[in-house]
């Protein structure tokens, strides 16, 4: 009966709504309420302070965040788009290798990436000092820091968004469209301007929005490189450290409003989908570079680019081999051994953060796994009122900057609530796994929904027609088919949780201190080798997961973000 179907849907929705209401909606509401309070009374004062002349630093931080984000979009596009064109439109020796290496920045977790940039180009970095040494200069010729540093790191870590979306868009363009334009008498330039480029606009807009959001939320780069430079995500952290929770809440609300409006704008834009290719199954079409001079110039450029791209990884690896106390006044490290790795297994205080991270990431990603399956299934395969709203609610943790998610959880669970079973979660072990869980729900839901949408309804109907009940069908048919998508999303959630820094720094306690916090501590003690070794663990985990997803789960690297 119809009611039976509706009952099933309702039964599915109850846990979904409970979790989302408890851990996404309720914390956001708590933050909003907090932002309207001062000394226990409701007031608009906080917003007055934010925009008023009293604390101009806030407005300055908002402005800085916006303009850094715009510049990040610009620089990422300038690197990512040409690369996408070169690697997908021209064929030259080593093309495949180069195009694979071009996405290497994604295996660096944000904190580790910033760290290796500091090792390389910072005040005491290897590159500036090597140049100083080579040319006998009295001072380092350059070093990154402040705005330039943040922008460099952003361009490096965010250009893959442009590279990947553009690559897939370029490969989706039906070559016959361009052929048709040539056939009608256009020259190369006109074809590019009037046909190819307009077809890429959706991808470019999507990537721009994504990079803008990611860099608005960026925390690690300003945290380590900003110096006195203020950005909004960092201001939240400082307000919280200074104990001004009301101001932290106000700043969170303002950053959330920006991010969520971007999320809504992106959804609207993606649903518009003006340019859909009519034809399907297009083969790649690349033109071979025949001019030998041009060909080898391209190869050389490719090699140089690869060196620059992989330098951070290499630096991290080399530094991780430098034992504590052997690199102090020298320009280059002199001693290399595996001590930092051996210590991991010998010294429990060094091993503890690793264990904590792995355990908490496991718990969180397991939660995401279960919740992701149910939620995607409900969103993709079931009909109910308010589906659009639920869809937005699920994606909110993705749109919210990590700092805001952290603040939300602090303000929601610094007192006993029904959602925390009457416990105060802040200051306990479990607040961090919860934060990771909330942060990475959208990852699993998205990768699961992608496979579920591919699953034709008739498959489920066929099972039902053959006499299988709903749960049997779900277990024996739906789950096995979607498992690769679910697993790849879960694995990604796992490694991201292992590398997560912003929420960790807001919520950690002595008992659950994760890797990224320990990296920060080691950096403060100038024990670069141990910090790099921790970083290598994260990089290694991400590499393994991407490899598994690619090899066994059939996931393309461009879908892994």
């Amino acid at each position, binding site marked *: *009966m*119809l009611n*039976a179907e509706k009952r099933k849907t309702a039964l599915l929705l109850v846990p979904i709504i409970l979790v989302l209401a408890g851990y996404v909606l309720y914390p956001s509401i708590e933050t909003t309420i907090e932002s309207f309070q001062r000394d226990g009374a409701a007031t608009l004062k906080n917003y007055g302070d934010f925009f008023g002349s009293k604390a101009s630093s806030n407005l300055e931080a908002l402005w800085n965040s916006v303009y850094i984000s715009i510049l990040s979009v610009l620089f990422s596009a300038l690197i990512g788009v040409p690369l996408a064109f070169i690697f997908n439109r021209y064929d030259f020796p080593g093309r495949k290798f180069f195009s694979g290496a071009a996405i290497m920045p994604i295996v660096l977790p944000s904190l580790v990436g910033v760290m290796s940039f500091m090792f390389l180009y910072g005040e005491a970095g290897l590159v500036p000092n090597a140049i100083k040494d080579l040319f006998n200069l009295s001072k380092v010729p350059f070093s990154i820091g402040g705005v330039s540093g943040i922008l460099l790191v952003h361009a490096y870590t965010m250009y893959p968004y442009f590279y990947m979306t553009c690559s897939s868009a370029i490969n989706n363009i039906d070559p016959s469209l361009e052929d048709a334009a040539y056939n009608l008498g256009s020259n190369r330039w006109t074809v590019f301007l009037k046909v190819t480029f307009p077809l890429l606009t959706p991808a470019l807009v999507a990537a721009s929005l994504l990079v803008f959001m990611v860099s608005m939320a960026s925390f690690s780069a300003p945290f380590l490189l900003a110096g006195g430079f203020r950005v909004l995500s960092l201001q939240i952290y400082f307000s919280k450290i200074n104990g001004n929770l009301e101001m932290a809440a106000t700043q969170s609300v303002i950053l959330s409003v920006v991010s969520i409006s971007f999320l809504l704008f992106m959804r609207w834009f993606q649903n518009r989908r003006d340019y859909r290719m009519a034809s399907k199954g297009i083969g790649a079409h690349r033109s071979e570079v025949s001019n030998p001079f041009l060909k080898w110039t391209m190869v050389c450029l490719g090699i140089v680019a690869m060196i620059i791209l992989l330098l951070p990884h290499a630096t991290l690896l080399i530094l991780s081999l430098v034992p504590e106390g052997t690199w102090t006044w020298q320009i280059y490290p002199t001693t290399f051994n595996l001590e930092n790795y051996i210590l991991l297994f010998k010294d429990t205080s060094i091993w503890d953060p690793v264990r904590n991270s792995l355990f908490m990431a496991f718990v969180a990603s397991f939660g995401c796994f279960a919740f992701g399956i149910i939620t995607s299934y409900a969103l993709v395969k079931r009909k109910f009122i308010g589906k659009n709203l639920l869809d937005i609610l699920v994606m909110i943790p993705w749109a919210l900057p990590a700092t805001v998610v952290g603040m939300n959880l602090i303000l929601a669970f610094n007192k006993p609530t029904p959602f925390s079973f009457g416990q105060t979660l802040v200051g306990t072990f479990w607040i961090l796994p919860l934060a990771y869980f909330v942060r990475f729900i959208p990852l699993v839901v998205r990768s699961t929904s992608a496979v579920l949408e591919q699953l*034709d309804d*008739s*498959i489920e*109907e*066929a*099972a*039902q*027609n*053959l*006499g*299988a*009940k709903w749960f*049997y069908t779900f277990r*024996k*048919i739906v789950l*096995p*088919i979607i498992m690769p998508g679910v697993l790849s999303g879960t694995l990604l959630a796992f490694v991201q949780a292992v590398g997560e820094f912003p929420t960790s720094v807001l919520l950690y306690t002595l008992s659950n201190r994760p890797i990224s916090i320990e990296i920060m501590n080691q950096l403060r003690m100038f024990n670069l080798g141990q910090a790099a070794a921790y970083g290598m663990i994260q990089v290694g985990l991400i590499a393994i997961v991407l490899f598994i997803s690619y090899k066994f789960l059939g996931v393309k690297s461009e879908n892994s973000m």
Partner: protein
Amino acid sequence: MSAVNLSNITKKFGDVTAVKELDLKIEEGEFFTFLGPSGCGKTTTLRMIAGFYYPTAGKVKFNDRDMTTVPPEKRNTGMVFQNYALFPHMTVAENVAFGLKVRKLERSKIKEKVKEVLGKVRLEKFIDRQVSQLSGGQQQRVALARALAIEPDILLLDEPLSNLDARLRDEMRTEILRLQRDYGITTIYVTHDQVEALSMSDRIAVFNEGMCQQIGTPTEIYNDPVNDFVAEFIGETNLYNVAYKDNRFHCAALGMEIQVEKPLDERLRNQELKISIRPEAIRVSDEEITGPNALRGKVKIVQFTGAAVHTLIELSKGVQLKVTTLNEGSFTYLQEGVEVVLQLPPEKIRVVPSIRERA
């Protein structure tokens, strides 16, 4: 095995009526086809029989059991989907065994049954293949085997041949018919292809815009269509408006009175009428023909298709006539531009009410 009885079925999706007041009885062991253009309600009706939709009004009965709101898994129907809906993570054998496992048969029994059914569809050799390794025609057979393995009361086929190429389609047509006769199973077949419908069915129901237009054997439907939609949808035909007055049919387009052998059904007296005559029923000659309904025209286009020759003849400005003749050798072909004489035999002309004039 079951008879299927649909009484006064209506199905609405929001404001759209997909099926309207449908009454239908399908006999035990019958091969019954729902035929119609896309969006006519035929698949909706099939899905109501399978249980994927519940009718807004009306009753579905298998024999005397009311199945109107029984969920699909309890109906014991075997359905073959348009895209086959094979389980991609299972082998051929596992696909076929699925329904048997659900029915908790013994392991050895399942094995035996799977072998037997795959033998019937001639796929024994592929028993351990992954379904993705099969060709379209083979996948189709697996889908059939899977549906037949559970010994369903009714076999439901939803445009099963539409994804196959022409030659394979011919082959599978025979195959499906053979299996249906072998098992003697009540079969409901949905298609938009009139050739499939005419060549396979015991009876056909022609659908248009959610309404069943006519139910009958293939010959009844082809030879005696109930209205101009059925006449035009099934096979080729020539349709002309006629006015009925004083027991005579006046056709303005042809500019003459048409003699029809069958007297007009009294119920049609006040409706808009058309005459329908099949292209193969018209006599053509380059010599004088005497007798009723003789016409003159000029050959416009001659299309040679192998077994038959299609000729388009212009009678007067804007009025054309399709004629089909069997290929009886090159001396019988007409030349384009030649004047010919035609005759519409009165016993072959059908007078039908017009339901599509509005369009």
